């Protein structure tokens, strides 16, 4: 029996007394690409944070590839997921260090060979190898987004959770990202307002702030 890559049922999330998500359900099949859209404050980023176990829902459950997300299972389930935040905080080091650091973690040691694909990813995203020696602080917003994305792609996770990954990109780079993601065989949940990203999605889910209703 094959499980949904992500199966969310009846999620209710309240933060600081405010209900962010109410009775929210969503199933994403393996390999499916879902675009999440809707006005700000609707809970899109909160939903991704719930899937990663960074926000605990008050009600409902999340299954990742058939495994219930709990405080115990989250540590292994995170190894199936890659995440790129809207404005990634990459620390205060060089790009080289940012891209190599995840492969020093015990869970990713066996993936160190993936770093061989780094030059290819840089090229596909319109970046040259000179960027590796730059300090993260000197990067533009668009460069940070692409480096964050490359870092997640190098880990080759089954599931990618991408939050507004193209918001700081120009048209040309946005297209390069879309083209690159089209060829990635992973389940994706992408928060976006970008028409170009809708192009690669199998489904668009609109999330509205609680009270305004949600639609698929």
């Amino acid at each position, binding site marked *: 029996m094959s499980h949904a890559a992500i199966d969310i049922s009846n999620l209710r999330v309240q933060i600081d007394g405010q209900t962010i998500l109410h009775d929210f359900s969503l199933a994403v099949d393996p390999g499916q690409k879902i675009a999440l859209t809707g006005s700000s404050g609707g809970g899109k980023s909160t939903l991704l944070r719930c899937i*990663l*176990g*960074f*926000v*605990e829902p008050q009600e409902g459950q999340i299954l990742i590839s058939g495994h219930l997300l*709990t*405080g*115990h299972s*989250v*540590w292994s389930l*995170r*190894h199936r*997921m*890659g*995440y790129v*935040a809207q*404005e*990634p*905080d*990459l*620390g205060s080091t060089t790009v080289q260090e940012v891209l190599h*650091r*995840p492969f020093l*973690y*015990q*869970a*990713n040691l066996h993936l160190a060979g993936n770093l061989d694909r780094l030059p290819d990813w840089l090229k596909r995203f319109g970046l040259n190898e000179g960027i590796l020696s730059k300090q993260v602080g000197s990067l533009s917003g668009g460069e940070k987004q692409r480096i964050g994305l490359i*870092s*997640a792609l190098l*880990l080759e996770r089954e599931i990618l959770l991408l939050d507004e990954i193209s918001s700081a990109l120009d048209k040309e780079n946005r297209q390069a990202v879309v083209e690159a993601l089209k060829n990635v065989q992973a389940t994706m949940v992408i928060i976006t307002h970008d028409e170009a990203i809708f192009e690669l999605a199998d489904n668009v889910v609109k999330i509205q702030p609680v009270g305004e209703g949600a639609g698929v």
Partner: protein
Amino acid sequence: MNIQEITMVRLAVGYGLLIFPFALLLWYRIPIVGRTGLAVIRMTIQLLFVGLYLQVVFQQNSIWLNLAWLLIMILVADLSIIHGCEFRLRIFLFPLFFALIAGTSIPLVVFVGLVLKDASMTDAQYVIPIGGMILGNCLRADIIGVRGFYESIRKSEKAYLHTLAQGATQSEAIRPFIAQAYQSALAPTIATMSTIGLVSLPGMMTGVILGGAAPWTAIRYQIAIMLSIFSGTAITIILGIWLTTRSGFNVYGVLNRSLFVKDQR
């Protein structure tokens, strides 16, 4: 003991030195006259009380009395750290208490039991002042180290969570924050060790010289106490952080925001 006595009358003369700071506070209308006066009164009462109590402790030379006194000092230091860091008492009281006990007692036992020639843990003359000096430094180190650790994770929470999302274990994710906090907390002791004797005569050495010992003996005491302080601060910081991480983070590895009193207001 070859030391000049200070009578109460002569001590009162010493209070005459307060004329200068108080005159300046009044002249420049600096609004801390009341607070300063209260601090002087508190210092006097606290030290007189401690002096009376220590007289008894020193006469008895009982290991139990010494331990009781140390435990009270550690509890006060514990509460002082929690208050100074604006942490939740319920979460930090016991972990920091144990971190302070370990940070104080390990170097104290080595100092009194092994470094000093003929002393034992019953000798209040050694146990109380040496324990107090180590504890005082542990307190300062914990305030810098433990607070620095949680504050830096709070400030860089996005980067910390990103690390978890990349598959890091909690211990891998907090490692750089521990290193940073550890470095900051040890920095004052390292700076003191680097300049000691050049800038000022250190406290213990001064005390030993005033007690009538030769400078050569005083210096050896000072070296031993600096080593004890450095070791004690290193132990208490790392234990302070490790013992609090259990309640400092939830089971998903996310920082527990209720650690900070100001986040609960």
